[in-house]
Each structure stands twice: as C-alpha cells, then as structure tokens.
C-alpha cells in the first residue's frame, strides 16, 4: 500500500547551512505522526518541504499520485487550499479578520457562500470550545484561544493532511494538552492525517508513531523497513 504523503531523500540548505540531508518520511492516510528531534535538527524544514511551502534542493515529495516538487506555485497553492491544513506555533491568523471569519476563510476560498461558510465555522468554533470569541479579532484573544481557532481553521475544509509545527509551543501545559486533544480528536473523526512537529514528549504522546530527525536526517522506521 502506498503512502498518502511521502518525502524521499530530501536535501535542503540555507546558504552554507545544511538543514536536511537526505531525509525520508512516509505518512499514511489518517495517521498522526510526530516529528521529534533537537533544536535546529531540521524538523520545521522537513515539514515545510512536505507541505510544499519550501522547495527542497534535491529529493521528491509525493502526495498521492502527484509530485509536489514538480509543481508550479499556483498548483501547490491550490493543493494547500483544498487538501492541507496548518497549525503553527503562532496562529498565523489574519489579524484583520474576526476569529469566525478566519475559520470560515478556507471555505470562502473554496467558493462556498458566506452564510454557509460562517455557519459551519461557528460549529467548528463550538467544537474547539471558543465560540465566545467568534466576533473578536485575533489580537484580542488569548494564545490558547488563538490556537484553538487555528485548529478549527485547519480542519474546517476537510483536509487530508494537517501540518502542525509546535502547535502548543507558546501555551502552558494545561492549554497545550487541551489543544492537542481537540486537534487529534477532530483529525481522527474527519480522517485527516496529522504531521506534528514537537520537542515535547507529552505532546508527542498524542501521536500514533514518532519520527526522529537528527542533523537533517529523518529516521522513519517505516521508510527504512
């Protein structure tokens, strides 16, 4: 059975600094994979390459039958819009839009009418327990609330893969745990795979399996096998 998302021998350098050196990873549909490793080992870079945000210097990224590394910017953008969801350390919410509008945004970009999009966004906000901030701007809500809004926004479009880079990094442990619970529960329910970068063991515990990155090389037991 072939993987949903697969990175094969990825290389990436920033100037003289190598960030990835032949990293390989495979993610099955619906599984939650934690990418762990020391600071500066290349976890974020790997995630960005897999999501098509950063183009690797060498190696290929495959999503289903499509090769991300061969795609033009427009195609990768479309893929992000329709297939991927993102939760980063700082929410990356659009500061000028209310939380509700932020959550509804992926649906709006997919061409869904505003009323319906906002109706569904409200349901998602309720699901991640922050319907009270629907009308607030991101600058007016707490870090934990912002991350929950980001989780709702990542999942509302029914993505196949959610990319999460230190989603709890800026939160206290209690809040962090709750956000992880909400994220993984919602992902399992919708059948989305989650690629989770973290250096906290407690967070990694929410995953089905862990992939360790060391000095730009990913030890994905499944790929090695």
């Amino acid at each position, binding site marked *: 059975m072939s993987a949903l998302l697969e990175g094969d021998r990825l290389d990436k350098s920033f100037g003289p600094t190598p960030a990835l050196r032949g990293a390989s990873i495979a993610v099955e549909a619906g599984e939650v994979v934690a990418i762990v490793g020391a600071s500066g080992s290349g976890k974020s870079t790997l995630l960005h390459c897999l999501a098509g945000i950063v183009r690797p210097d060498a190696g290929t990224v495959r999503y289903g039958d499509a090769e991300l590394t061969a795609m033009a910017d427009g195609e990768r953008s479309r893929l992000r819009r329709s297939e991927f969801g993102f939760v*980063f350390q700082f929410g990356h919410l659009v500061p000028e839009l209310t939380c509700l509008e932020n959550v509804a945004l992926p649906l709006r970009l997919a061409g869904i009418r505003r009323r319906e999009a906002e109706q569904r966004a409200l349901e998602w906000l309720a699901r991640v327990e922050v319907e009270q901030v629907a009308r607030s701007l991101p600058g007016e809500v707490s870090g934990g609330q912002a991350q929950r809004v980001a989780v709702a926004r990542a999942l509302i479009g029914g993505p196949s893969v959610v990319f999460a880079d230190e989603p709890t990094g800026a939160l206290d442990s209690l809040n962090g745990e709750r956000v992880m619970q909400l994220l993984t529960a919602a992902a399992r329910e919708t059948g989305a795979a989650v690629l989770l970068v973290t250096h906290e063991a407690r967070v990694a515990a929410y995953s089905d399996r862990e992939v360790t990155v060391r000095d730009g090389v990913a030890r994905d037991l499944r790929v090695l096998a």
Partner: protein
Amino acid sequence: MIRTLLPLAGAAVLRGRDARARTALVAVAAGFAVALLLLAVSVPGALGARSARQDARSPLVVEGSAPLRLTEIGITTGSDDVSGLVLAPATGRVPLPPGVQALPPSGSMLVSTALKAELAGPDGALLRARLPYRVAGTIAPAGLLGPTEARFVAVDPAVAGAGTAVGVRGFGQAVSRDPLDPVLSLLVVVGVLILLVPIGIVVAVAGRFGAERRDRRLAALRLLGLSSGSVLVLALLEAAVAAAFGDVVGLAVFAAARSMIGSFSVASLGVFPGDVAPTWPAVVLVLAAGPLLLGGAALAGLLALRVEPLGVARRAGRRRRLVWRVATLVLAAALLGAGTVALAARLGLGVWLVGSGVVLLLGAAVALLPWITERAAGALAIGPVAWQLARKRIRHEGTTTGRVVGAITAVVAGAIALQLLFAGLAGGYTTDTGARRTGTLFTAQQERGAVADRMRALLGSAGTPALASTELAVHGSADRFVSLVIGDCRALAAVASVPGCVDGSVYVDRGGDARPGVVLDADGPWRVPVDAPSVSLGPLPDGDTFEGVVLITPGALPTARRGAVTVSTVLPTSAAGLTRIVRSAVAIDPTISVRSLAPFTLAHRFDAVRRGLTVGLVLVLLLIGSVLFVSVGEQLRERRQALAVLAVLGLPRRTLMGAILAESALPVVVGAVVATVTGTALGAVLLAIMGQPAVPDAGVVSSTAAVALLVPVLVTAASLPAAARLLRPEHLRAE
C-alpha cells in the same frame, strides 16, 4: 475569486483603529490630489464658459437705422472695474442683452449684485455721480462673466447721439480672441504640478503604511493557499479600496471648493460655480489616477518582495544608482531649456516642455535625496554613539522618514520657486503706467465740437487744464494723419513750453507730417502757419505721447472745423466737488469715461494668487506633517523590540533618543539644502521665462525654507514622548 478577495481587502483597510487611521490619511492625501486635479482640469472649461458669456453679450453692430443704439462704458474707481451698457432704444422690437428680462424705464438701470453693493458702499459717491440712474432691478447671472462682476445696463436716450454710440440689431456673436497667453497657462500648469508632485509622493508613502502588517496578513493567506498572483491582486484591491475613499474625499473637497469659488475673485474676475465643470472624460481620468498611483506604489513595493507562506523576503538588493538620478537631472534641465526657447517663440508646446521639466527636476531632487543622505552619513564617520547608531540605520535602511522628507523637499522647492516667481512678477508689475499723476481721468469723445468745448470748459474749471485731441487728414491724402492737441494757453503750458501764447497761437512738435506749412483737411483745407514755433510736447496727463503733433489754441481753428475730438483731463481724486463735476460732465455727455489713474500699478492682481499659494502650501505641509507623524510612530512601533533590547543591554536612553533624532534630522537637513538649491534654480528659470531679472530674493527663499523646516522639527518633537515610552525595557516582550 474577487468576491472572496474584496471583503478581505475591505477588512484590511477598515478593521481596527490603526487601519482606519491609515486609510483616513491615505484618503485625505489622495483626496487633496484628486480635488486639485479636478480644479485644474476645470480651468479650460471655466475659461471657455467665460468666453461664451462674453460672446453672448457682445453686440451685433449694424450701420444705419437699428432698433437699439448703445454705448459701452468702462469706469475705474479705486481698484474696481465697472462696465456696462447705456442703451437708447428706438422703435420696433428692441433686442435685449443676456441677463435682462425687460428694459428698465428710461433714466434707470439694472445692476449686478456686486455693483449694487459698490454703489451702496462708502466709496460709491463717485460711482453714483457717474451713474445717475435709478436702480430698477438686477442683471441675471446670464448677463455676467462672473459673480463678482460689477456691471450695469442703463437706459438713457441721450446716448443715441453720442460719438461712441453704435446701432445694434442683437446680441451674441463669436468674438475672435487670442488663445490663452502661453505664459499664463504655464503659471497654472506649473502651480498645479508643484502642488501635485509632493502630494503624489505623500500618497505613495502613505500607501505603504502598515506594510509590515500587510506582509504578515499576506503571508498568512499564502499559507491558506492563496497563490502569489492572488496575493498581488489582493494588495491592489486594498489600494483600490483606499483610493476609492480618496476619490470620495476628493469629490467632496472639490464640491466645497467649487461652491466657495463664487465668492473668491482674482483681479475682480470671479467664476460662477456652475462654470467650474470638468468634462466627464477628465473626471474619469482624475478619479482613476488615485487608484493607479496607490496601486502602482503597492505594486512597486510588492515586486521588491517575495510573499511566501512563511513570511516575506526582500528580493536581492537594489543598489542606489547615481547614473539615473543625474540623467534625470540633465533631462530636466534640457526640457526646461527647450521649453524656455519654445515659450520665447510663443509656442504652446513650451508649456508642456517646461511642465515636464519641472516635474522631472523635482523628481530628480527627491531621488537624489537618499543618495546624498547616505553619502553624508557615510562621510560623517566620527561622532557620539547616538550618531553612529543613526548612521548605520540611514545607510542600511533608507528610512521611510527619508521618503516623507522627499515630499517635503519637493513641496518646499516648488514653493520657493513659485514664491520667487510671484515676488519677481509683483516687482515687475509695479511698473510705470505712463500716467504722469495720480487722479481721475476723464475722457469724452465728441462729434459735436460745441459739446466738446462745454466739456473742456467744465473740466478746465475744476482747476486742472483740460485738453482735447483729434486727428486731421493731410489735405489730398487718404491715409496720412496729423494729431492735433487743443487747449487754452494755460492748458498748453502744462504740457509744453509755449512762449508768447495768446488765443489763436499754433505750435508744432515736429515729426511725421506735423510741420509748419502743412495743409490739413479741416472741413476744408487749413494750413498750419508757416511761422508756427517749434516746441516739444511732453506726455499728456493720461500718459499719451505723440510723435509729431500740432498744438492749437481754440482761436486758431473754429470749433466746427475740428471734427470729432477727445476731451480729457485728470482731476485729483481728492478734488473738492469731484462728484459734482462728474455729475455735470455726465449731464453734458452720458458716455464720458471715468478712470482712476496712478503712475504705478501695484501687482495687486497677484495678491490673491499668492495668498492661495500660501494656503495651499500650509495645507500640503500639514498633510505631510501628519504623514510624517504617523510614519515615525509606525517605525518606532516596528522597532520597539530592537530598541527595547538596546535599552535592556544598558544603552542610555539619552543615546537612543539622540539616535532617533539624528536619524530624522539628517534627511531633513539634507532635504532643506536640496530644496533651497532646487527651488532657487527653478525660480530663476521661471523668472527668466517670464522675462524678469532672474535674481532670487533671499528673504523669500529663507522664509519659505524656514516654514518648511518647522514641520519635521515639530513632528519629531511631538513624537518624542511616544519614543520615550517605547524605550522602556518592558517592551522587550513580543506582541
């Protein structure tokens, strides 16, 4: 896609206090530009409307019998011009001038509102004496050139026989007139450009406010799958939304200015608000200019960036190239030179050459500014820590402050140039009018010599000699004429030395056909006595001069043989009984012309323009000041963390404040120098084009530069408290 992007753009422009403040500023800046442009493109229409009004009321003159006889009368009292018609209706259907529903009864007149006010005013006595008619109503706007025009339409059958009366069968004909003086249109074009260039820069700078926030927003949207093209479209939409507000503000300002324009007059030339109507294509063009400019600024900003989902990166650095700036400067000089030549040849093309030269010159000055500032920062290598910090930033960032200062530079350079120009023109227009004295000039043209004699006697009785003049043909020739000046010995003595004068004496100021012994046609041949002494005639009181003239006393040639004569005298405006004399003179001849004379005309006509210019300058500087204030605040906020780090590391607050000050001070000082040099040079060029001595007035230059320097100084002072607050270590915490 646009349906999704438009609400996003709207939110970006209108959500939150900061965004609204930014948008308001952009809208005001763009609005000013739009209003100014709308006014500028209305000028041709307003001039056209004025010509049309003039055409509509110009009489259709006919020979022989006519339903109406009229004479056109001009009166100047003090500084006000009054004009009007005195009508003598004959039988039949009488044509009516525009603005007149029905002729007033004989002995009364219709007046414009402006004239009504003047007649009732404190200086109205002379006017009332000159216009001894009962006011029977008002002239409708259709009969006026502008709302402030002082005009009358009187009915007085006595004018029918006056020498200046003509038969008229109607009103309304195209009068051929010279195209607008290129120099005058140059003034308008240059004035508008000089205000527009800095406003354009300000709009562009204001359009880049909140760029850092916008970058974050666009990056977040890229992450959600917006393509780089859509992000560009979104940025353009944001600019367009802001510009749309600018258009609304601009239309409002234009409407306000238009309604006020009726009560504002230059050289007693007012404009009806209804005549200030730009054509639709012009309006569409102007309204499109704002979005284009803001969109262009946004585009230029974005093309230098790569908006990626993880953030925004600056594209590989552009070097500040001197070549282009110098080339622009050279091109500007060439255009100004070519324009000067073309204008000297009175080619309309010259206006456009000089106009583009002005824009390029200001643009080159603004473009040179950061280069000079960088060099200056590089050169001044020693100094306190604060200065070293400021130097670093100036050399590496080319700050927004620098760009705003560019706008100030452009406006100050332009203002200096215009102030110099008007100061020079005012000086040039304080010219000798040729009149020998101050007073009120009376001139009456008389067909009938007897009336002329009565007039001469009346005017002469006021204590000032009155002279009459006429022209007689040389006997036997059709096209050679000799001027005759008629006056009694006392009157002649006032203008020439006439020894041994008795009634009957004749003198000759030789020149042309004027010589003793010449035979003239005076209702039959009349020979100038062969022994007529030669004299030299100075200018007449009204400034008239002659080359060759025969001077006669009344006894030398019978009244009836003198033909149509013009009687004139100048009475001191303060003369006792002046109004009584005017009343008597009008009784003798209702067409007599009354005109204030002064040996020198001060250039009052430019006062209103200069006042307007100063108001415009202050408004533009206020606008720039507020843009500068916002931009300084934005920069401080963007840098708050870096500044806080320095504060935590123990750099004294005083040093940091010094660095912030020095960072704005250097561009400001450089800008002031560049503005002064550019403005003075431009002013000199414009003065030369106007044919004035191109010597800049140091007072004008320094006072304008000082006013302009005040803006950045005040703004920086006003932003220091905010800076001090930001420099506290607690701001180390990230947002």
